[in-house]
């Protein structure tokens, strides 16, 4: 995977409709990198038979 850097963060932020102040860029890049690595741990799991914990309830309440 491409390492997350400031330029990438600015690009993705535009796609998310987000204006990130310059002072946040480096901290955010590190945080995104960390989050991607954490998510990779979950990617290897077999979850096809598992219902997400938030499921749609069509009842009128």
């Amino acid at each position, binding site marked *: 995977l491409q390492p997350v850097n400031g330029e990438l963060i600015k690009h993705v932020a535009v796609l998310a409709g987000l204006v990130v102040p310059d002072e*946040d860029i480096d901290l955010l890049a590190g945080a995104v990198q960390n989050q991607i690595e954490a998510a990779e*741990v979950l990617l290897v799991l077999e979850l096809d038979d598992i219902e997400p914990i938030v499921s749609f309830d069509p009842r009128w309440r």
Partner: protein
Amino acid sequence: MAMTDLCWLSIDEASSLLRSGDTSSVELTHAVLDRIDATDPSVHAYAGVMRETAIESAEHADAELAARSRRSALHGIPVAVKDLCFTAGFPTEAGSRVLKGFIPSYNAVVVDKLCQAGAVIVGKTVTHEFAYGQDVPPTRNAWDQACYPGGSSAGSAVAVAVGSAFGAIGTDTGGSIRVPASVNGIVGLKPTHGRVSRHGVFPMSPTLDTVGPLTRTVKDCALMLGAIAGPSGPHDLWALNEPVPSYTAQLGRRLDGVTIGVDRRYFFYDAVSGDVRNRVDEALAVLRSLGGAIVEVAIEELDLSVSAGMSVLLGDTSEWHQRLLRYVGDAYVRETRVMLELGELVPATAYVRSQRVRRVVQQALRRTFDEKGLDALAAPTLPVTSMPVEQLSVDLTGGGETALSAFIHHCFLANVVGIPSISIPVGFSRATLPIGMQLFGRPFGEPALFRIGHAYQGETEWHTQHPNLTAASALT
């Protein structure tokens, strides 16, 4: 009785004195307000004090009690509420410049329920900005004012610990009731998700957030939960409509027939300090001496709980703040803002996958509780005691372990799977900083946690020790 002595009564004891006419709610309220004046310049537990309305409520409570119209054990008892909870006509700022001057037009359900129970609300307690835990508020630890007070319900825990409230309300999305309870030497309960209504409480995550009590004794915690549990009515979708039992009915001195699991691999890992390890093992020995069975368990899926929970926490919190971030982003503390920016960049696929993983962890935990016949799972509330504020790292944006990430490692499980967890004081470190043990229960298994915690407090005296604030003040 001296005014300061009144402040150290438990809710249960104060309630008995009110019932017998040996004190009044006005007297208790004045004692607490005086205590706030004496302690808050040092510990900064309160964001705002409601002097006039508190005295009015106390006078009203005294009139009702005199007419033998007692509403509950909380009737006439002064309590505090975290400044994340709406209070009609009184500022609710969630520890943020973003909400400077915001005055709600209605009460949170939990505030209404306290009022209906006859409690006297004396003030709003300090929280980290929107409960995210990324800033360090002015609140200081009750036992050492150089030290971190925990978060995000820091003000609520410190107020209870220093005697400037008999009990307080906090919120817990990843440990925010249990962490400050542990480092300030008091009891804190994160209830089952949906046990207490979240309506009128600034949210982080609809599936992780909980509202719960902080007190000095387990029995007080049970009394407070009894007052605030359940929805406000059939249209309150912010709480589950489950029956509210008597939370004090099972309290006793023995634990015969009670089984408590311990997962040493996950909760006693290398970073757990020797003091914490020793105090929790001593507490387990006390539980065993009371008739409880302690069994070793191994739940590998616990390793997934933090990774799964963080994607959900990030996405949910950022969704709520989405417009504020764009319009008044510069009003947030920088570290909070970066977490909100981070949450905007979590892919939807990662979010949904995390929701599946939460189910995996939930099923594994249920399987272990059922196969081992567990009533609770015991663990250190935190791997370490509090630390000086200048040594504190609450950064969640990096890859390494910080104080906050270590706290989350121990606490997040209860939020990720929605189960109750109570932190009770089990002693002190060599540096005389409090240590807590937490007990995780089955969904709506709060009565079992209260039973275990109350029996423990019947055999020990940690909960009767109070910080010497005069000595602590000398540190500043």
